[in-house]
């Protein structure tokens, strides 16, 4: 749009003089009004509400809520979940992106769709699948029980669920960047005697860094915010297997609305940070495109 608009107005002759026959000046204003009203009803008012509810009784109660042990444990668990599943999915995403973008093979579109699958599977179904695999009556259930390993209703299950739902982000963001970047420079590096690792570290990684960062941010946001899949496998035991999103729901159901909103503010801030970083990265890549 920014590209189209100036050329449209600045050309001195010809096209620029063509204007719609019936220019109704109120049409844009009306459409903008409807768009903003819809967004306000669905997004802005609810988003604002999170912050106002959390601070409705002042800063004191807000911090009191945030220093309760159940909250602290939930926050710690959420951090831990992200710390494990984000690196896992980054390694997978980079390998998958490399394998797919650098090779041509029949069924490439199918493999791409398979990687996207976790997005189209309902989180509850994802959780259910993990229960059917590792639960008491699951495939690995008897073996796990014999070795006294607990996955369902415990932290490992939560890691599995979190990793499942946030799996495709890195691969998805990196594949198009890798494809656009092409393999010429990598081949040049190789003919100059660089090994695979050096080629990746010195040539490939710098060129995909913005795409990778974008994928990382989205992976992290989803990993910290996942509710459905985690709540199926975790059993939602306060102080034990309760992540921050589960804490929000649990506090709300226990009529501790203020505690729920205090925790919700932290997650909303996570969302704000995610959006801001996303915007910065988008501008950076857009500038690079123009160059």
């Amino acid at each position: 749009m920014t590209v189209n608009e100036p050329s449209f107005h600045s050309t001195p002759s010809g096209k620029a003089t063509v204007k719609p026959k019936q220019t109704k000046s109120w049409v844009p204003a009306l459409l903008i009004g409807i768009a903003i009203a819809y967004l306000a009803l669905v997004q802005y008012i609810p988003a604002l509400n999170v912050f106002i509810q959390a601070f409705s009784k002042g800063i004191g109660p807000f911090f009191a809520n945030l220093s309760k042990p159940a909250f602290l444990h939930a926050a710690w668990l959420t951090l831990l979940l992200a710390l494990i599943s984000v690196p896992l999915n980054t390694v997978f995403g980079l390998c998958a992106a490399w394998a797919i973008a650098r090779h041509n093979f029949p069924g490439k579109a199918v493999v791409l769709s398979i990687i996207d699958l976790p997005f189209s599977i309902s989180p509850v179904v994802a959780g259910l699948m993990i229960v059917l695999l590792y639960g008491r009556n699951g495939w690995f259930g008897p073996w796990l029980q014999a070795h006294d390993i607990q996955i369902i209703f415990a932290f490992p299950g939560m890691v599995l669920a979190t990793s499942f739902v946030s799996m495709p982000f890195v691969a998805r963001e990196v594949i198009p960047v890798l494809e656009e970047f092409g393999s010429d420079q990598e081949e040049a590096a190789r003919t100059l005697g660089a090994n695979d690792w050096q080629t990746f570290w010195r040539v490939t990684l710098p060129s995909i860094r913005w795409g990778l960062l974008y994928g990382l941010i989205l992976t992290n946001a989803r990993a910290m915010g996942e509710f459905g899949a985690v709540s199926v496998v975790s059993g939602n035991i306060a102080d034990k297997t309760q992540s921050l999103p589960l804490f929000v729901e649990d506090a709300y159901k226990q009529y501790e609305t203020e505690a729920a909103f205090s925790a919700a503010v932290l997650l909303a801030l996570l969302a704000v940070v995610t959006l801001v970083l996303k915007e910065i990265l988008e501008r950076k890549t857009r500038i690079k495109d123009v160059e």
Partner: protein
Amino acid sequence: MAISPSFEVDRETPGWKKFFNKLRQIPWTWRITFGYLTVMLFLPIAAMFLKASTEPPAKFWEIATSPLALATYNVTFVTSLLAALLNGFFGTLIAWVLVRYDFPLKRIIDATVDLPFALPTSVAGLTLATVYSDNGWIGSLLAPLGLKVSFTRTGVAVAMIFISLPFVVRTVQPVLQEMEHEIEEAAWSLGASQWQTFWKVILPPLFPTILTGIALGFSRAVGEYGSTVIISSNTPYQDLIAPVLIFQRLEQYDYSGATVIGMVLLIISLVLLLAINILQAWSRRYDSK
């Protein structure tokens, strides 16, 4: 690449070893990719299919079409479809406004369209339930009109609208941006009104893209759990959605019941994925023109 192992060696190596050697030639990136996909994706899906197949077909059908299950499909799919269609209209309008007009705070509004992607669903459910409750900011305005939103099916629809809106906007926006301005100008210079230009020139090539956005939003709304479970009262036959039914069955240790409903949802999301791929191929057809 071991292209020419001599025949002697070939005769001595057993089949499984040859297979193993071939496997070792696969680059390690592929091995990690497939290893991870197997553990994280293929095994769980296989476990689910196998669990579902232990159920005799008649029993499977009976559970899948029990009145309670049918009621949850009704709430889940019909409400998702309504939410997606509503977003199809308003999402296209938002994309249009963002691409074609300039107004204050446009950049911020553009950036915040993605809020539902970034905001954890339980927070979304919590705040939507509060805002649309009978004494909430918006709910208190609707209550005198006899419209109850939170803890009803309308509330579920609101949560689904929230969660699926960015899919439509973000799918339509780039296509609208790349659309040739010249075609519109040609239509104008031929005397078409703005409305005619939109209806006859812009909308037809945009239509597959809008449909893709609607399908993406629908598919997300069908699977949505976090926000819908909080805003819904989860009353059977009223606003109980299918994912919650799965959850409840699991809580009662009714694994086959959960699996059957889960299979129905999984199959429908696979069908939707296929439909979205076909739709995307259809909308790309216009690129070459």
